[in-house]
């Protein structure tokens, strides 16, 4: 009997997370990259001219994008060794489930990095977070879903090309623009202490992007595989 779509997706996600949990190299590398990025950004501008609170949303979401790209790179890269991808395709699960499982593992990975990066931005940039922290994490979840959906699909495609490392950012970044835009604007509204209602259009944009990207990428993924 074939397991259900979500059950088999969770199966794939667990496999990827188990690999990650046993090696731990990628997570630590991406985390160090993200915090290094936060530090480097601090020295790229004049702290007396631009207030940290104005810069923080941009820094946070640019780091989010690039560390996300790094983690997405390995998603299908790991399946290339010993043609593990063929094994996945032979297993009795739907191709949509492979995609959703991969995307779920990537989502948890990206959110794990984010869980430690947001407080470090708050710490290093002296942000008055406090109450806004839960909402900031909510924005991170909304942004991560859209980003991971597109990124997982392109990771599957880029892994089979000659320019894998170069092609993934080139294909993904135009798609990340509306996500980063929505997340950064919502964060800026939040950090400026303005009412949450003002950020509503950006939340709507993020939710719409999540729905469209997740649906389109799940449907498109089987087409990227051989018949």
């Amino acid at each position, binding site marked *: 009997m074939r397991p259900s779509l979500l059950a088999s997706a969770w199966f794939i996600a667990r496999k990827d997370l188990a690999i990650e949990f046993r090696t731990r190299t990628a997570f630590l590398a991406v985390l160090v990259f993200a915090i290094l990025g936060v530090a480097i950004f601090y020295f790229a501008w004049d702290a007396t001219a631009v207030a940290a609170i104005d810069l923080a949303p941009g820094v946070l979401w640019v780091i989010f994008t690039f560390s996300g790209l790094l983690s997405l790179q390995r998603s299908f890269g790991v399946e290339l060794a010993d043609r593990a991808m063929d094994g996945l395709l032979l297993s009795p699960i739907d191709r949509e489930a492979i995609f959703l499982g991969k995307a779920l593992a990537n989502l948890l990975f990206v959110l794990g990095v984010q869980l430690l990066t947001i407080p470090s931005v708050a710490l290093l940039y002296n942000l008055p977070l406090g109450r806004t922290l839960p909402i900031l994490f909510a924005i991170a979840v909304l942004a991560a879903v859209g980003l991971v959906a597109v990124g997982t699909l392109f990771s599957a495609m880029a892994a089979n*090309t000659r320019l894998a490392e170069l092609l993934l950012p080139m294909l993904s970044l135009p*798609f990340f*623009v509306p996500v980063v835009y929505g997340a950064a*604007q919502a964060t800026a509204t939040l950090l400026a202490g303005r009412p949450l209602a003002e950020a509503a259009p950006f939340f709507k944009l993020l939710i719409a992007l999540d729905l*469209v990207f997740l649906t389109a990428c799940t449907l498109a993924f089987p087409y*990227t595989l051989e018949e």
Partner: protein
Amino acid sequence: MTSVSVPDDARSATQTTRAASGPVLFDWLFVVAVVGMIAAYVRAIFFTPIEALQGAAQKIYYVHVPAALSAYIALGVVALMSIVYLWLHDERADRLAESGGEVGLLFLTAVLTTGPLWGKPIWGTWWTWDARLTLTLFLWFLMAGYLVLRGAVDDAAMRARYSAVLGILAALLIPFIHLSVYLFNTLHPKPILLKPERPSMPNEMLVTFLGFFAACSVLCIALIRARYRYGLERDALRALELDEGDVSE
């Protein structure tokens, strides 16, 4: 042995003679397009009055807008043919999408170079993050990515599938980029000078514009056709080389 190899030899022989006679890439349609473009340029430069407020810079409009419309034609071909390919798996659709992508990038480049040339004297800036400018820039990025992706995949069927998926996703992305800038613009209104209302055009200018538009559209179609034929010849040559490789083994 001979009975097997004769059809192969015959096929490659006919294909060699066809290749030797030279493929017709640029045909009568291309000639019409080039003559039309030259005529349109001559009319725009010498026989169209200079606009009162903007001066000579306004004449860029005659190249800029038809180029943008032609770019939309070419990109429409990419989006449509991507859907057709995933549906029917017909390699002709893939070849047409490829042709549309290259020609589209060419016209987008023309739009993005003529735009700032007009913007500097009229707006006082080369670039502004206005909705249309941003959208055009991202269309350019998407098409560049599309062509790089095509160049990075060796297997023909895989290349066709990947690029069709990207073509469709890119078409889905466009409304969101537009929406992002729209949200941005409503929150931070731009000075009204950045969006000047064009005065309704006098007849002489309108004729020049429509002439340019017609010539540019024909050029776009002729280029896509020529690029398609080139793709056809290239694939035939590749198939021929593979055949020869099989024979020598």
